[in-house]
């Protein structure tokens, strides 16, 4: 990938030593920091993962962001506005973490817009009612937390540290979403129906957020060995289901899976198989909102070009004026 540094020049001869040092650091559960030597594959994998994560935060602003102007109370408006703003902040930290690996934010944005880098498939589904805001908080942020908490111990320092802050904020968002749903379930019959409808639509896509099943996840083994990733997709999915079932009972909604039941022997819930063909279609770009989401990001980026150019031009003029002043 042209956005990443290759190994430092002249390091070739020393590479076996550096490689051993890197592996020993990983084995001791210590962090790799930006200035440490790292194998090119490790760097590339991290840039890809962190960029996808950053893109997901930024694209993920859209489905809920649509409801800020329509939120039905000022309190909910403020909560949602703040949440979507947090997502922009998460995107910023994550792009910064990617930049410590030699990537460039503008270049990553181009890759997103051109469809060369992915973001979480979940954001390609539409938000059809205000209940979706609550269900996204509960399911999508809940699933994101299951995925991300182990990343707080990721072997790459800047990513791990970004994840600590992000996870704290995500768990806030999850509770806010759940609290909105609790309030709606205590409200009118129509509100309860809105909640159940949103649960029905978001449940399976949320299970897909953990990625394909372990036997079909080609990159997982290397990422686990490098301790970029700590748990398998299926383990995390199970964790999410086990965490969510009692919350659904308490809320009074039905999760749309007839196979869902407690398995005493395993100590976990059994559940049905998500439609993996659907996941593959959405990942390939044929989900309900893929084109719309990317197009919005492209429009904002292109329409903002003159603003970014103006800021650059002003900074250059300021610097030139300062230099002239210093000479004179």
């Amino acid at each position, binding site marked *: 990938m042209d956005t990443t540094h290759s190994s430092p020049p002249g390091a070739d001869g020393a590479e076996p030593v550096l490689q051993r040092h890197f592996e020993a650091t990983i084995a001791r*559960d210590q962090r790799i920091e930006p200035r440490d030597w790292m194998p090119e594959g490790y760097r590339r994998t991290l840039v890809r993962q962190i960029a996808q994560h950053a893109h997901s935060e*930024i694209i993920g*602003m*859209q489905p809920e*962001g649509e409801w*800020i*102007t*329509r939120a*039905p*109370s*000022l*309190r909910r408006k*403020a*909560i949602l*506005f*703040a*949440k*979507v*703003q*947090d997502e*922009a902040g998460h995107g*910023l930290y994550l792009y910064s973490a990617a930049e410590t690996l030699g990537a460039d934010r503008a270049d990553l944005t181009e890759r997103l817009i051109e469809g060369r880098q992915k973001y979480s498939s979940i954001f390609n589904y539409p938000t059809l009612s*205000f209940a979706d805001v609550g269900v996204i908080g509960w399911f999508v942020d*809940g699933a994101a937390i*299951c995925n991300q*908490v182990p990343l707080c*111990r990721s072997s790459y320092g800047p990513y791990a540290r970004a994840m600590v802050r992000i996870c704290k904020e995500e*768990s*806030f*968002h999850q*509770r*806010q979403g*759940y*609290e909105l749903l*609790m*309030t*709606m379930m*205590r*409200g*009118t019959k*129509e*509100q309860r129906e809105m909640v159940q409808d949103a649960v029905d639509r978001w449940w399976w896509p949320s299970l897909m957020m953990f990625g394909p099943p372990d036997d079909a996840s080609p990159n997982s083994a290397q990422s686990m060995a490098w301790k970029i990733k*700590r748990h398998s997709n299926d383990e995390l999915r199970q*964790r999410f289901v086990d*965490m969510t079932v*009692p919350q659904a009972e*308490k809320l009074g909604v039905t999760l749309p899976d007839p196979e869902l039941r407690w398995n005493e022997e395993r100590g976990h819930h059994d559940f049905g198989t998500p439609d993996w063909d659907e996941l593959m279609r959405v990942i390939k770009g044929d989900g309900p909102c893929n084109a719309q989401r990317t197009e*919005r990001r492209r429009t*904002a980026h292109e329409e*903002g070009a*003159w*603003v*970014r*150019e*103006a*800021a*650059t*031009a*002003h900074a250059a*003029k300021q610097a030139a004026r300062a230099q002239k002043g210093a000479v004179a």
Partner: protein
Amino acid sequence: MSDDHVYMTLAEGHEDDTRWAYGTGFEDPLQGVDTDVPDGVDAQELAALCVTLADDALVSAQRLAEWTTRAPELEEEVALANIGLDLLGQARLLYSRAGQVDGTGRGEDAYAYFRDAGEFRNVRLAELPNGDFAFSIVRLLVFSSWRLAHFERLAAHRDPVLAAIAAKGVKELAYHRQYAAEWAVRLGDGTEESHRRTRRALEQVAPYLGELFTAYDVRDEVVAVLSQVTEAAGLPMPVYRPLPGSGRAGEHTEHLAPLLAELQGVARAHPEATW
């Protein structure tokens, strides 16, 4: 090392948890402040003033929210949302105060969601569509300069609640004005295109300036800020061409009703609901 404790914490109930996200953390905004109307203050006038200032803030926050996912850079995404959240917070406090003193006991949502355009008292400047980034910045510069000057005076209001709200708002508005002024200078000085767009934005806001200067005479202060910023940006000062009518009298542009339709639609579709 295990993550189990983290998941356990997430799975637990949190009904008592009131630690909401930034800018949303108040249940009783006027807690600890004496909420009686002081002698010599006309309750209806006070309520009308609070509603006017709240309407300005709510309509502005709604326009700022429209920038979400459309800003030219992520830093601007965060900053515009910050400003929108501040103004939304001000609106909520001011509506609450109005509801306490106007005898109706209405809550903030009654004012925001269940009044029609003709009952809103915001300046027309606030309701104009966002236009490009230059227009939004110039509008914010004018609005925050005016509101800051106004709030600095209101911080000494005889109503202690309004005074407290204004004092809190002053800190926020000083940041809004600084943000807008910095961008106005960047855009005015930056490229030919950004200069042209910003100059045009100044011409577009000019007709809406007069409406701001009614209550307290803060015109000189606002004009001084604008001339300082336009000079630094290499831009001409906007020329006054006052428009007939006034948002303060409920006379609005054609843009307010659609803005409110979007803001109020869900709430009005479910009037019995609680959110």
